[in-house]
């Protein structure tokens, strides 16, 4: 069983932890949290991800930098905005990202 690694980037720690907990409920999804743009870059250097979700607190400029950075080193990773901060939209966002890019 292949585990799908999902990076969740956002500055609101309790919300990021909630999102990670929701993702981890799925047997084949595993979440990693990055609480800043710098953390996200570091973590991406150490680990491969199938999807990157950009949550609240990451500014537009940083999001673009992250996209540019990943496009150079790992061009096939979908980077999608996460909206809502909970379970409402999360699963559709991940399913859509996985179906579009893989």
């Amino acid at each position, binding site marked *: 069983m292949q585990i799908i690694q999902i990076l969740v980037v956002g500055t609101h720690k309790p*919300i990021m932890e909630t999102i990670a907990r929701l993702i981890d409920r799925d047997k084949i999804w595993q979440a990693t949290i990055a609480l800043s743009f710098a953390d996200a870059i570091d973590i991406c250097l150490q680990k491969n991800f199938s999807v990157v979700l950009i949550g*609240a*607190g990451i500014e537009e400029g940083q999001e673009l930098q992250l996209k540019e950075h990943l496009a150079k080193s790992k061009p096939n990773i979908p980077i999608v905005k996460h*909206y809502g901060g909970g379970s409402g939209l999360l699963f*559709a966002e991940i399913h859509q990202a996985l179906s579009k890019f893989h």
Partner: protein
Amino acid sequence: MAQTVIHKANTRGVADHGWLKSYQSFSFAGYYNPERINFGALRVLNDDIVTGGMGFGEHPHDNMEIISIPLEGELQHKDSMGNEATIKAGEIQVMSAGTGIYHSEYNADATKPAKFLQIWLFPNKRNVTPRYDQIVLNHADKQNEFVQVLSPSKDDAGVWIYQDAWFNLANFTANNTKTYSFHKEGNGLYVFVLKGKVEVNGDVLDTRDGMGIWDTNSVEIKAVADAEFLLMEVPMEF
């Protein structure tokens, strides 16, 4: 030429958690239908029934404009901004979740169910400071009119949100016809029938049916029988 999509009431997603029955016009939580993700900036339209005394415990939101319209009963709201309020039928509540909030929402009555619409729109600006508002609507006695309950402007009628969207509630008597004109080019209109039967550009909608219309400047709406409905004008590109 106008383009349309119809979502019949019985094709919506259904989640039954015992204390909550939720009819979902678009993919939400465990309901995933790639053909039903959104209508422009309108991402969530949940038609919820909450059992007496029960409700949604504390949970987070971010970067979403969240509008609640109670249809029956009362809901008790409490959030991390310090707001504590009860909202009831005839009122509307809005939250801009922005950088992040926590809130809970319970049926204020121990025995009677509370029914409400939970509507989420993508914001036109991410990471705003969270905000909360609720107002009393004076639409019930206004028949055969479109009564604006939401807009993008603080100075306009109804509540306001971070999106170029306008909502109207309407209570039409049978055979009344009125034309809705869009506020902004590129916007679409989602019609949701709360009660009764309406004809929209020639298509007949029954209770809890929804219809989206775009690529047009106006929409003719006729009450086939006495009807109550919600009109949501939203950007199709955002």
